[in-house]
């Protein structure tokens, strides 16, 4: 019993920097969501059920009323496809878990706790206690602070006045930097930006998301060279 407790405490301690970061990011997400007309209940429900910051910010960015369901689902799928690789990599490291622990734990697999779990697994066995010790506070933090942001945001008025409308653009630029792998990422970013802005100008939203994503992915594939052939 005490070792379970110790594992859970390790998880909490390792997640704490991400927990601190999720306070302002959650508040910001909630405020932007309220700015697009989502209610507190809708904002909190999305954080509880989707629990994927990048996809949620993107959804709020392309949100209209009534909600364009297919567009939102497609954008969410594209942004979250990386989870397939993350869960495939973590699957063999959770072989000793019960089925319900895996299916519940992977429900809340996000960039931050995935990275932590991988780091832990590289040093010692990854226990459910460690994983849930990290994810429970992180999950609660994201839901609570996005809800508080929605309440505060409806009183703040026009987000443009304080530059908050640019906050998720800045957040996404920061997130892209986290995926940076040199030349191939630069090619992807340029192709995606040009195609997205072009499609936005020609056809309007939401086509820019698919156009930019396809162009960026295609550019990375087309310009790929085997290791030995690189200059």
């Amino acid at each position, binding site marked *: 019993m005490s070792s379970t407790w110790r594992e859970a405490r390790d998880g909490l301690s390792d997640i704490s920097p991400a927990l601190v970061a999720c306070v302002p990011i959650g508040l910001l997400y909630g405020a932007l969501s309220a700015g697009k007309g989502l209610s507190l209940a809708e904002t909190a429900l999305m954080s509880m059920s989707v629990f994927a910051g990048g996809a949620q910010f993107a959804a709020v960015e*392309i949100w209209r009323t009534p909600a364009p369901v297919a567009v939102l689902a497609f954008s969410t799928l594209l942004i979250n496809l990386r989870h397939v690789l993350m869960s495939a990599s973590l699957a063999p490291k959770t072989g000793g878990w019960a089925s319900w622990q895996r299916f519940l734990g992977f429900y809340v697999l996000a960039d931050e706790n995935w990275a932590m779990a991988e780091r832990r697994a590289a040093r010692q066995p990854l226990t459910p206690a460690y994983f849930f010790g990290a994810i429970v506070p992180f999950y609660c933090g994201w839901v609570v602070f996005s809800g508080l942001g929605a309440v505060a945001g*409806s009183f703040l008025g026009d987000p443009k006045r304080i530059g908050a409308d640019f906050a998720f653009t800045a957040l996404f630029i920061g997130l892209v930097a986290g995926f940076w792998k040199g030349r*191939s990422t630069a090619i992807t970013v340029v192709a995606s*930006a040009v195609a997205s802005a072009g499609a936005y100008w020609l056809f309007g939203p939401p086509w820019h998301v698919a156009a930019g994503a396809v162009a960026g992915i295609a550019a990375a594939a087309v310009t790929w060279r085997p290791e030995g052939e690189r200059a």
Partner: protein
Amino acid sequence: MTEMLSVQPATLAAIAAMAAVTYATRIAGLFLVGRFNLTGRAKAAFDAIPAAVLVAVVAPVMLATGPAETIAALITGAAAARLPLLAVVAVGVVSVVLLRAVLGLG
């Protein structure tokens, strides 16, 4: 208060679809292990997905809104190479507010 707790049917459908799609991506790996070994060109395409999608979402704000947003995006990009995420957001927000004021677009 009732307004805060209201849930529109289309919104509920969108959230349910987003949640279902997201959960599918999260557990897919459990079923793909051992059958999923991307290499070469396919791996390069897969690795490009997050950046391609994130940029596609915000490119209209960066390139098709106005000079203040475009310049602020460049400043934010420079900050992103050096600073942690929260500081990057702060730099972006402050620079867009200043640029809009300076360029008379605020």
